[in-house]
């Protein structure tokens, strides 16, 4: 029988005595649209009427996917499964089953046969620990059909906002929800909205930042690809709340599918009159524009993004004035990230209180992460704030492939840092990650194992920020360049202890004096790797050794003659691939690398099918 996912809600927090019976009501979207809330309310009333509140607890659970038979209800410990319940069925159910202990057969669901051996999605670790709010429609609707979005309660939040709420109430709802910016810094979105709503201006703009530039992150792409209307609806609500009549979605041109689906979604919303003049027959009008980014990481920074929408160079400028006072074309402008906007409709729909009940004290709701790198289950996940990194890596991610040892998890992209094994029990929230020297960032999580060299990782990120620095301010332009030079020197085995001291000093200067967030955070990968993996730097400098064998200048490649001959039969692949012609040998015989000629590119090691080549 289908087992419901039993995530206890906050209502059970005060329970002192154990309940004799638990009633699990599915509160997934499917069941909610089948009136599961009303059924739940009716249950509560009926239980109260019979004075059973202290004996029976009611728990709202997540979706079990069996939406077609909703609303669903499971009674524990009896494991009785009721389906397609109606409000009018409740009195009989409570009296017969809960009071008299006689399960009501006519409401019960009998599953089709032959389903026993199949694992349930709610039992699969990758999915079991997730809770989908921003991704609520992923995999369930056709993103190119607006009707399917509406079918899952889409655009009811904007309808509610327009008819039942004042703009001030909307903004207050977002404030109360505790929603914080999902793009990186985690500024409270409601406060930002309040500031914008307060501005006295005839024209205001809102912007969706979909310039997802962090390498190793694809949350925003996935949200737009799987549910573009959630972003559009979020922006509509924001526009009404803040008094804006025009919005821009600034999206990377490297995401062709997302771009296409966004255009389709906007076109369909316009046809339905959900964008344009007099939306849903009200006085509210809103125009949506899509602007394609042209490949500059710095344009994720607010002021650079604004300049780029205006058709200018994507360079940041000093703040204040903040965009909320003087943004696009000098008008008050509110910028939020894709995931932030996607959370808005459901907050309005279900209420701030519900949203604030998920997560931790300071970080409410859920966060979407892309989990990639040296991990078994790569993918996109959405988890409640406060989950530990360990749970993400081992429960959801399924651990490290090939029996390798975990080394670090990198979060926050080029602005973030690497977190080592002994910090894995940190709860994922804005503050904890910052204290560990990393940051929440937009949600990229890259797992690294023993084969990853942390000095090389630091160098990798500095290559990135050096290339992406716009060049406007000297600390970032010159600082990232110099730090990159030093790191390269170290990875090539030419570093000195003095270099390390200079590197540390430079990191502080760049952090403190750069103009915008790109420069201010660029040293983070260096600072955290120095903090947690200093021994690796020292091994490169003092022993000229890269334990992970990544820094190829420090490697010596050796062919084991016996393995090459017996297992590989002298196949000759390495000889043909070697760009330096350093490998000699005949087919059927052992091959040899001439260390004088070897350029240490590592190709032979990568192409050998017989593990005949080792690195020393």
């Amino acid at each position: 029988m289908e087992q419901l996912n039993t995530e206890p809600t906050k209502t059970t927090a005060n329970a002192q005595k154990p309940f004799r019976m638990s009633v699990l009501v599915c509160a997934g979207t499917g069941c909610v649209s089948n009136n599961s809330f009303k059924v739940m309310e009716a249950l509560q009333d009926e239980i109260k009427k019979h004075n059973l509140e202290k004996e029976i607890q009611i728990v709202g659970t997540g979706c079990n996917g069996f939406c077609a038979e909703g609303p669903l209800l499971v009674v524990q410990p009896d494991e009785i499964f009721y389906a397609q319940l109606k409000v009018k069925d409740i009195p009989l159910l409570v009296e017969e089953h809960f009071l008299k202990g006689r399960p009501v057969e006519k409401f019960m669901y009998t599953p089709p046969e032959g389903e026993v051996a199949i694992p349930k999605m709610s039992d699969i670790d990758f999915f079991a620990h997730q809770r989908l709010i921003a991704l609520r429609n992923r995999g369930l609707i056709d993103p190119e059909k607006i009707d399917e979005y509406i079918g899952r309660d889409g655009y009811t939040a904007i309808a509610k906002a327009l008819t039942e709420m004042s703009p001030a109430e909307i903004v207050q709802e977002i404030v109360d929800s505790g929603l914080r910016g999902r793009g990186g810094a985690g500024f409270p979105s409601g406060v930002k909205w309040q500031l914008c709503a307060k501005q006295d201006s005839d024209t205001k703009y809102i912007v969706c930042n979909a310039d997802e530039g962090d390498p190793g992150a694809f949350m925003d792409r996935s949200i737009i690809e799987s549910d573009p209307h959630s972003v559009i609806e979020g922006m509509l609500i924001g526009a009404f709340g803040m008094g804006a009549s025009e919005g821009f979605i600034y999206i990377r041109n490297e995401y062709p599918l997302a771009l296409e689906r966004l255009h389709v979604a906007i076109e369909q919303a316009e046809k339905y009159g959900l964008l344009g003049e007099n939306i849903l027959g009200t006085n509210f009008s809103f125009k949506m524009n899509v602007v394609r980014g042209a490949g500059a990481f710095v344009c994720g920074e607010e002021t650079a993004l604004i300049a780029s929408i205006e058709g200018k160079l994507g360079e940041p400028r000093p703040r204040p004035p903040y965009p909320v006072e003087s943004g696009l074309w000098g008008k008050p402008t509110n910028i939020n990230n894709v995931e932030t906007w996607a959370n808005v409709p459901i907050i309005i729909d279900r209420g701030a209180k519900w949203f604030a009940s998920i997560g931790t004290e300071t970080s409410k709701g859920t966060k979407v992460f892309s989990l990639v790198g040296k991990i078994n289950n790569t993918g996109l996940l959405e988890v409640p704030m406060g989950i530990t990194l360990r749970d993400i890596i081992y429960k959801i991610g399924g651990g490290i492939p090939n029996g390798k040892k975990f080394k670090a998890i990198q979060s926050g992209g080029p602005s973030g840092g690497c977190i080592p094994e002994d910090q894995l029990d940190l709860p994922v929230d804005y503050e904890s990650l910052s204290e560990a020297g990393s940051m929440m960032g937009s949600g990229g999580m890259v797992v690294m194992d023993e084969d990853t060299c942390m000095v090389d990782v630091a160098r990798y990120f500095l290559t990135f920020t050096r290339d992406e620095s716009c060049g406007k301010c000297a600390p970032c332009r010159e600082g990232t360049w110099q730090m990159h030079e030093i790191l390269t020197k170290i990875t090539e085995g030419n570093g000195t202890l003095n270099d390390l001291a200079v590197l540390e000093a430079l990191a502080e200067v760049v952090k403190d004096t750069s103009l915008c967030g790109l420069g201010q955070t660029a040293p983070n990968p260096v600072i955290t790797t120095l903090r947690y993996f200093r021994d690796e730097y020292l091994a490169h400098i003092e022993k000229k050794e890269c334990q992970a064998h990544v820094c190829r200048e420090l490697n010596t490649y050796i062919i084991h003659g016996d393995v090459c001959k017996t297992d590989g039969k002298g196949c000759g692949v390495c000889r043909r691939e070697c760009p330096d012609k350093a490998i000699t040998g005949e087919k059927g015989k052992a091959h040899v690398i001439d260390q004088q000629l070897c350029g240490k590119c590592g190709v032979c090691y990568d192409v050998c099918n017989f593990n005949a080549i080792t690195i020393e």
Partner: protein
Amino acid sequence: MSTQTVTGIIEKYNSEPKSLIAILQDIQANQRHLPKDALEEVATSLDIPLSQAYSVATFFKAFSLTPKGEYCISVCMGTACHVKGGKQVLEKLERDLSINAGETTDDLSYSLEEVHCVGCCGLAPVVTVNDDLFSKVKLRGVKRILKKYGEK
């Protein structure tokens, strides 16, 4: 892509200076680079200094002042691709095409580029050729990719 004239592209955006980047993107997509005369026409039509058009054209990575190859091969250098060997794939392509990253073959068949993450990190390492995406690329698979696009 159908050939649109520079004039046609500019008109599509009503000669608005705020659409400068979008206009240049369309010209780049259409002609695989931004020719000098196109930039001059854009600057005149939008009534902006030529220097402004050039500054935008050289600031953003999407633009090139020299022609790109028919097949633009981009090797993802995102973090996941980096730790999973994207660099080795790039070096293999450099050897096979006898060009460095950022260059185009003399016959204008291929351009080779590094790209900072195409957002397909779950399938690293990733290589894109124009609009096609290749995932979990192995060194041995590079030949096959090139073959598909008629390596000469």
